[in-house]
């Protein structure tokens, strides 16, 4: 589904992403972990086409990620939910429906609104919403097009417990439908229960790649929590 090959990105003199390569298959739920400044968001943004890659390839089903054809194959839910301040919640979804040419969008949007407790807030302007509410709208915008690949950058930040649970359920449902999810997060417990595989980044490189169980076995003979594993692999030499 997604193939990233030798991806590089430099900001002035800092190597934000340093030659990373990985492949995500259909139906994979893959977590992207790493300390602050590891290059997770930069990687996500490059896959979404918001940042230019200095070197390397990103392909979705063999199509370059910057081509229009590839853009219909994924959605990206950014870390900071910046919306159109003067559009209502419903108009955001309507706009997405227009942009992605989605049929029968209202029915799908209503379902999402109900799951995220936004049903009675459909006519509120984005500028009137709290940060958590904006995050919910941003997630709904990402879910509406029902693409093949979902890129979530810290999706749980600011969400209330019910919305977090709903998001986890949605991840599970999407995975069952054969959709691919690539999620960057700091909430390690969600990774442990949801993700089939984790990629750990540090200083722009992938320092660990595998399923949670095998990584645990490799580093601590299966003992200890994911948190301990994370701290172990990301600690400074």
């Amino acid at each position: 589904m997604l193939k990233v090959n030798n991806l590089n990105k430099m900001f002035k003199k800092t190597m934000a992403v340093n030659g990373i390569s990985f492949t995500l298959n259909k139906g994979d739920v893959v977590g992207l972990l790493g300390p602050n400044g590891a290059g997770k968001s930069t990687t996500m943004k490059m896959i979404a086409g918001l940042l230019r890659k200095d070197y390397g390839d990103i392909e979705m089903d063999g199509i370059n990620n910057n081509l229009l054809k590839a853009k219909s194959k994924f959605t990206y839910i950014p870390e900071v939910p910046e919306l159109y301040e003067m559009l209502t919640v419903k108009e955001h979804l309507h706009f997405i429906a227009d942009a992605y040419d989605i049929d029968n969008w209202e029915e799908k949007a209503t379902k999402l609104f109900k799951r995220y407790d936004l049903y009675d807030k459909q006519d509120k302007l984005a500028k009137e919403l709290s940060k958590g509410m904006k995050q919910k709208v941003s997630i709904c915008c990402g879910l509406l097009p029902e693409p093949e690949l979902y890129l979530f950058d810290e999706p749980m930040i600011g969400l209330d417990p019910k919305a977090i649970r709903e998001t986890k359920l949605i991840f599970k449902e999407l995975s069952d439908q054969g959709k691919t999810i690539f999620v960057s997060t700091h909430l390690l417990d969600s990774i442990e229960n949801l993700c089939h595989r984790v990629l750990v980044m540090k200083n722009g490189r992938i320092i660990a790649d595998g399923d949670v169980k095998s990584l645990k076995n490799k580093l601590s003979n299966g003992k200890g929590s994911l948190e301990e594993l994370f701290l172990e692999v990301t600690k400074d030499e």
Partner: protein
Amino acid sequence: MNSYKPLFRKDIWTFKNYILEIKNDKKRLIIYLLYIFWIGSILISGFSKLNKNKSDMSVSIGSEYIAALITFIGIFILMYNLYKGLNESSTFFSMGDVNVLFQSPISSKKILLYHMIKQSIINFFIYGIVILALLPTLGDLVNIEVRYLGFMYLGYISFLLLIEPLKFLMFTLITKYKIESFLSKMIYSLLGLIIVYIIYHLVKAEDLLKGIIKAMNAYYINYIPIIGWAKSAFMTAIYGYSSWSLIALILQFTLLALLVFISYNTANDYYEDVLSATNKRELRKKRKKGLKKRKNFFLFTKKGKVNVKSKRKGPWAFMWRAKVYYKRTDIHPYFSILTIFSLIVGLTVGYFTRNTEGIIPMYIANGVIAYIMFLMSSVYVSNHELTKPYIYLIPGTYIEKIIAMNLVDIIRMTVNAFMLNIALGLTIKASLVTIISLGLFLTSFYILTVFANFLVRIIFPNTIDHKTLFPLFFMLQILLMLIPGAIIGGIVATLTNALGFFIGVTVTNFIIVAILILLSSNIFERLEWK
């Protein structure tokens, strides 16, 4: 679906929501009507002055000055933007576009074209307010032919409309073809050429003012794209129509269309380029609302560690923080780039008015600066500290907090006010009393604007749209606080002399400030952190 349709529909919804907001909150209507009334009064005042007769002499000098000033400002704005364009693109987008629109399967070229055209149309009207506001002043200086006002407007607008696409295209070419070094050399060469050209005319004319006017008004400047073409169209309303006026205007808009066309065909991977500019645009909006502190002159920004000693604790931490900020971003905690500017303005005004009888230039200079301060206060709300939680949380008395929070800014302003008045006063041989009185006048005016900020936040908490309405209320607030000073100053001036007016205003301002400081506990208790 047509790719432009969702974009257009989004803007229609946005417009509709603005209308609905006004409909649901009638208070807004009053404010918007006040804006319309303000623009209307400018127009009436401007048009009434257009038909008044002026002497040929004053018209001739006035038009020469205006033409030179236009060229000078045009060169300055263009060169500044070309320089900025080396490191940063311009933006036609919001953060909403970055997060929602950019990842959608709509062609990036189409997104660019749509937003460039939309922004040009909006700016066509928004930028016009400035020229409308200047119309009365222009009408005082020169005869303006009403039938050619359209040329004046389009000349001015076309120049401003060209800047952003030019900057965008320049940055796109830099990232695409890696020609930063080449373009940078070109820009510095151009700047060097302009400086040599001005120096040549200064040496030739042997007079500063004459030299600059001659350099700026040379006939061949009219044939230079962007600046000259805009100037030719602008001056049509003053100099009269010639066939070149129309040709220049057509050329200017053709160039704009060409820049948009080239941008459309060149930029296919510009999302990253506009990210930083879009972020900065959002920051500027926040600064206008007082949510972020304004940036100081970039040349003085220090990234490393700065040392500021702190002896007093509690609310005085605000003073330490302010000193650290200014030490990092400016020349010195108490001396700013404005201090140097004040010195230059004081010496320049003093030099050109040294033969004038009396100290009227000092009154005018201080009056103009107070007026600019008043206008600027409506554009930039200064007290960003109120938007942070510390002022509400740090233990200490409110009087201490209010003083500690503003003292560094007040000292900086006092230094600037005295620098201007000392430089100007010594050049035109004004008395010490005059220098001190006028220095204190500007300082008191500044302190009043700072306190007005507190009051307006209490009277109009966040229930209204700060972006559009806060500055207006702020301006009204200052105006109300200035009225007592103006009345007392007027009375004192009638009883004594012109200096009495400034002393009267200063004393009244300080009394108002003292009352506000004494009432600070009551003021703070009503403030909320939102």
